[in-house]
């Protein structure tokens, strides 16, 4: 072992449906025999990694945020909690303070500022975390946000901390689509970002947004062009001009599409993908160790 540090790769895309989960699960499976892999499905609003990795769920845990509970016996209706809440999760109505749990970000400012100690922070469940091993020995965990709950970042943050063990050598995080807070949270702390795009104007538009995030967060990254052969050459041109490497191309093929829709990965389509993903992993490792801006 030349580097005992864990290597954390986040798979993101911007545009939805470009193949994040296809790549993330295929990469995890190709490394399963050599590395101690932890796979985190961070797309908590629509997790689907389990459909491909098929883990045996062994443990589960509630994901919670802390929300205020107001003891009206102690409350002097000073209105300070309402004033400090940046999310309008509290309102002073008549002789009481109303709490709107779905707007609360769990920051704790209200309790901190309460001079009469009338605010107790209580657990508000927003989803669940589940974990287990796959047949190949991959440690798998995902978060499932309860429908109608709006806050994704706390559950992603809890998921990232949950199953990490000293024995883990590679963490693969499958990010949600888009370029908002949940993607930033999934990228935070990653050593490398593998960006999946398709060669279409939509793919390029959203890819640029995620590249912007990577630059702000100073995370090195590389691109996989999926459904190669459709669309136009704008993605290639953009990446060439900006010195961002294309690390793999996955062709547009009905064979792949039908494998994915039956719950299989690229490794089931062709055994060559196993070797390709292992080579990709070595390249990422080298890139991270040499601190090359990919």
């Amino acid at each position: 072992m030349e580097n005992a540090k864990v290597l954390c790769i986040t798979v993101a895309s911007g545009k939805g449906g470009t193949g994040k989960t296809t790549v993330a699960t295929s990469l995890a499976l190709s490394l399963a025999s050599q590395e101690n892999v932890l796979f985190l499905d961070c797309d908590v609003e629509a997790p689907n990694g389990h459909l491909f990795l098929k883990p045996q769920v062994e443990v589960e845990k509630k994901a919670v945020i802390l929300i205020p509970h107001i003891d009206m016996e102690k409350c002097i209706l000073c209105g300070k909690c309402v004033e400090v809440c940046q999310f309008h999760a509290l309102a002073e109505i008549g002789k009481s303070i109303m709490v709107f749990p779905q707007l609360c970000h769990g920051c704790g400012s209200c309790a901190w500022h309460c001079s009469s100690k009338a605010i107790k922070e209580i657990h508000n469940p927003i989803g669940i975390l589940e974990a287990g091993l796959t047949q190949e020995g991959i440690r798998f965990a995902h978060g499932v946000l309860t429908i109608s709950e709006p806050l994704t970042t706390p559950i992603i943050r809890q998921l990232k901390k949950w199953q990490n063990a000293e024995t883990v050598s590679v963490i693969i995080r499958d990010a949600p689509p888009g370029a908002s807070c949940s993607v930033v949270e999934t990228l935070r702390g990653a050593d490398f970002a593998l960006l999946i795009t398709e060669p279409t104007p939509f793919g390029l538009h959203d890819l640029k947004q995620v590249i912007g995030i990577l630059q702000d967060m100073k995370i090195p990254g590389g691109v996989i062009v999926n459904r190669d052969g459709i669309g136009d050459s704008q993605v290639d041109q953009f990446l060439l001009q900006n010195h961002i490497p294309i690390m793999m191309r996955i062709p547009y093929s009905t064979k792949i599409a039908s494998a994915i829709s039956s719950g299989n990965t690229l490794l089931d389509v062709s055994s060559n993908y196993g070797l390709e993903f292992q080579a990709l992993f070595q390249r990422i490792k080298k890139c991270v160790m040499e601190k090359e801006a990919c």
Partner: protein
Amino acid sequence: MILIISSQGADINSLVDPRFGRSQFFIKVDTDTNHCEVITNSGVNQRGGAGIGAAQIAVDNKAEVVISGNFGPNASSALKAAGITMMTFGQETSTVQDAIDHYKQGKLNSFG
């Protein structure tokens, strides 16, 4: 009777704003004295919770009736808890003055 009306502009001849939480201004009218006051809605660019912020404005201004185009679930639960009557603009309500007149004529529908 104190009315609060969501408005796109800062005077009584402005067009009404069909949105409650994201309304640019609120015009507060005392129907007994015909005194008007303009309230700027600080929540107009708020990411979330604008409806509750606006409801808090109505409560703090001791409104008895709030008139707007629609009320979201958070705003309406807060206003309801405060005992404030919610009413919606009629089809012919175009300016704040119209809203006041239509209210007085009993032409507006109550909400919720």
